[in-house]
């Protein structure tokens, strides 16, 4: 069964450092997303991406964040200068269509900023 894969599973970084979280969406999907989940809290939308551009982003997704689809398979989230409060699980998701369709989530990357 096709699945969304994320690497690494756990990333520890020092405050102020740049991190890149990587995702390989399901191959025939066209819409890609990043969500995050701070420990014990609900899953929060960060950004959606379609046709090589951001289609929607939340208030959390400020200029410290960026996304990229550098090739035909990877979808990355970059945090330019990490803060302690960026520590969370980051989930990549993808869907075949955009609105009103199920999104398939990866297993997540646990980001710990120290």
């Amino acid at each position: 069964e096709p699945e969304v894969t994320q690497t690494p599973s756990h990333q520890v970084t020092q405050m102020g450092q740049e991190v890149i979280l990587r995702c390989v969406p399901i191959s025939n999907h066209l819409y890609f997303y990043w969500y995050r989940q701070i420990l014990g809290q609900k899953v929060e939308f960060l950004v959606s991406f379609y046709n090589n551009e951001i289609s929607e982003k939340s208030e959390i997704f400020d200029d410290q964040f960026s996304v990229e689809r550098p090739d035909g398979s990877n979808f990355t989230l970059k945090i330019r200068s990490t803060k302690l409060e960026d520590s969370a699980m980051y989930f990549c998701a993808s869907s075949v269509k955009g609105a009103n369709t199920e999104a398939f989530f990866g297993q997540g990357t646990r980001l710990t900023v120290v």
Partner: protein
Amino acid sequence: GESVGLHLPTLSVQEGDNSIINCAYSNSASDYFIWYKQESGKGPQFIIDIRSNMDKRQGQRVTVLLNKTVKHLSLQIAATQPGDSAVYFCAENGGGATNKLIFGTGTLLAVQP
């Protein structure tokens, strides 16, 4: 503002019983809803969805009910099994052409053998 909340943070049931997990949503413009299951250390897993033009949808052992009048969503799991133990999230789309999902806070379902 937009918010999705759950009535019960923890639900404990006996194996074999039916479970009902409830969710209240506040955005009356939402027209698409999903239930996700999240096991420890894993990402959200799709269970079932429903559009606002329906009030009930059934899957394998699961049923989702939508009451738009009171903005309430529920997930019913028949013959609950130990493997059903997880956190369950409802999510809504907030209406419009958006493709983001707004998640609720989650309910922990604990199935006792």
